[in-house]
């Protein structure tokens, strides 16, 4: 039963992703779709950290920045192909996550939030100030992915938008699949126990420190890969990618959609990516509407959009 629910969720998402382009009136929607998927991937990582393990991070854009700049710097300085640079970025992010996670994951609540915030700001400052290497605040160009050319060689001519729609969708689906698997696994159950009560989890023999670190590292890799995909897609990267606002945006997407649920997180990233595009008509009120939507969701659907609504539909109420 449980297992089928996992496959149901994944299949529904896959079908949606595959069917949506049929309704696209122009190539622009592929770009929006690709952005939703890239954000969805990063936010899925946060669901593992925040929703499963109950730890907070306000610095995950730092990892996105590392992933993004790995794709800019490694091809330029090391001659590494962009596809391998994604891997390199993920490895660097994972190692960094272990190094900084060990000391700061001893902290809880606000203290952990502030420590991760500090990490994010540090990465952003390094990217801004190390001009000789990173091009400073003006950013730097990123080579395109060779895959698109290879596909073209095989007679599969995709526009940049279509290509990135497909690639980001696949990346997100893989990310979602892993997250859903984790949820059911022993590790996932232990993480949720940790979320429920750290003391109780420790009492039943769960290695709390190790588990927190695992969740932190996994989510860091998600953010890093998402950052890489964003940089490759934009063919340009600036320190904004590691900025404080980007961290906040990711957490907001997760919380809005429903931080305990992977599909909720994807919904959250879809809404927060779409809203600014829809609201360009009332540009002056954009921030106002965004804020209002968030306040309303938090008051009336405190568990996040998707889980709250799902619970209501099942008649269990809030």
């Amino acid at each position, binding site marked *: 039963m449980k297992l089928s629910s996992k496959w149901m969720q994944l299949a*529904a*998402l896959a079908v*949606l992703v595959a069917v*949506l382009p049929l*309704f*696209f*009136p*122009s*190539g*622009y*929607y592929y*770009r*929006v779709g690709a*952005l939703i998927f890239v954000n969805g991937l990063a936010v899925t990582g946060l669901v593992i950290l925040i929703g499963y393990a109950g730890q907070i991070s306000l610095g995950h854009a730092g990892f996105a920045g590392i992933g993004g700049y790995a794709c800019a710097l490694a091809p330029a300085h090391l001659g590494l192909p962009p596809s391998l640079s994604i891997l390199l970025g993920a490895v660097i992010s994972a190692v960094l996550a272990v190094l900084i996670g060990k000391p700061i994951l001893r902290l809880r609540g606000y203290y952990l939030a502030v420590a991760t915030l500090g990490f994010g700001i540090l990465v952003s400052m390094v990217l*801004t*100030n190390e*001009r000789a290497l990173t091009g*400073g*605040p*003006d*950013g730097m*160009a990123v080579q395109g992915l060779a895959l698109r050319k290879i596909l073209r060689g095989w007679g599969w001519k995709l526009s*940049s*938008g279509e290509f990135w729609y497909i690639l980001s969708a696949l990346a997100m689906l893989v990310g979602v699949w892993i997250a859903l698997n984790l949820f059911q696994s022993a590790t996932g159950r232990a993480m949720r126990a940790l979320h429920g009560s750290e003391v109780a989890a420790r009492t039943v023999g769960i290695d709390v420190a190790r588990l927190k670190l695992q969740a932190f590292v996994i989510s860091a890799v998600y953010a890093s890969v998402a950052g890489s995909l*964003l940089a490759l897609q*934009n*063919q*340009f*990267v*600036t320190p*904004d*990618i590691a900025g404080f606002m980007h961290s906040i945006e990711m957490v907001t997407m997760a919380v809005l959609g429903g931080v305990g649920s992977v*599909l909720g997180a*994807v*919904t959250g990233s*879809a*809404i927060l990516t*779409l809203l*600014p*595009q*829809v609201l*360009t*008509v009332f*540009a002056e009120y954009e921030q106002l509407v965004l804020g209002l939507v968030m306040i309303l969701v938090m008051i009336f659907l405190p568990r996040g*959009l*998707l889980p709250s*609504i799902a619970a209501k539909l099942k008649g269990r109420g809030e």
Partner: protein
Amino acid sequence: MKLLMTTAVSALVVLGTTAAMADIKLGASLSASGPAAFLGDPEAKTIEMMVEQINEAGGINGEKIDLVLYDDGGDPNKARTFATRLVEDDEVVAIIGGSTTGTTMSILSVAEDAEVPFISLAGAIQIIDPVHKWVFKTPHTDRMACEKIFSDMQQKGITKIGMISGTDGFGASMQAQCKDVAPKYAIEILSDETYGPQDADMTPQLTKIRNTDGVQAILNPGFGQGPAIVTRNKAQLGIDLPLYESHGVASDGFIELAGAAAAEGVRLPGTALLVAAILPDSDPQKPVVTAYKTAYEAKYGETVSTFGGYAHDAVDLMTNAMKTGGSDPAAIRDALEATQGYVGTTGIYSFSPEDHLGLDLSAFKMLEIRDGGWTLID
């Protein structure tokens, strides 16, 4: 799931209805809000004003301009999405925009892929060097500002300088360009200091420069309040060296911030727009800058800025190209590249296949602050 679908579908419906009818569609993505609003806000206002003026005067070859303007908030990622939207969904024939180098570089590859002419309003040299077929820009590069300053130093016999730069995008880019081009003018940079965009006191850096042997002048690549603080601190420390500021602070606001006494004798490269009133009548730019200044200040009740001037020139260049080339993107691009001797607020533009900036050093006027006002040096 249903919810996701409904959200997505309803979003598509809303987005779909924004597509408007015929006319010539001109797209713009500017940083009208956010950290780069000092650039994007006057640019957006200028473009809106000019499109209104053109339409009131009957449009271009009888066709009205339909302006589609988005605010990217200075976020390169958003700028790219809006550029994609302009090209794919709004189907514009030309794009103006990219208030910052970051947003411009994100729009650049979209314009190139879609083969739509694009005029950027950002400073960095990498936008037009190497030349991209569909990409032009109106602001002079930081490098040219450095060259203008260095050539003035050369005339005064200055060969050894100290530099104090902001670490923001503007200051960082200009610092790098100045260091790069200094040897060409036999200028030696003996001291190279920096300050953060939020710093409120630059006396340590200035003291360090003062204590460096042989420094003959100070150059301050920076934007915003930083240069005003540098100017004030330098006066407070009684450092008796000529001070050069960047084109980024060429406004009356700078003199107010720094104080007329401290700013006395400061030199900087500026555009004709800032000194419209004191330009000699023989200056070819005088009618253009006066007309723009008068119209803008009457409409918005605020002083014109160099940045609005960049947008003014971009709209003029683009619409002139539409007049000769028609409304086909490729024809507009060709007409744009063929532009010769267009007199704008920033300078006199002559494009060529090898030069998509079309300005030379003469676009800059060397200005000196005297008695709280501007004086033309050359």
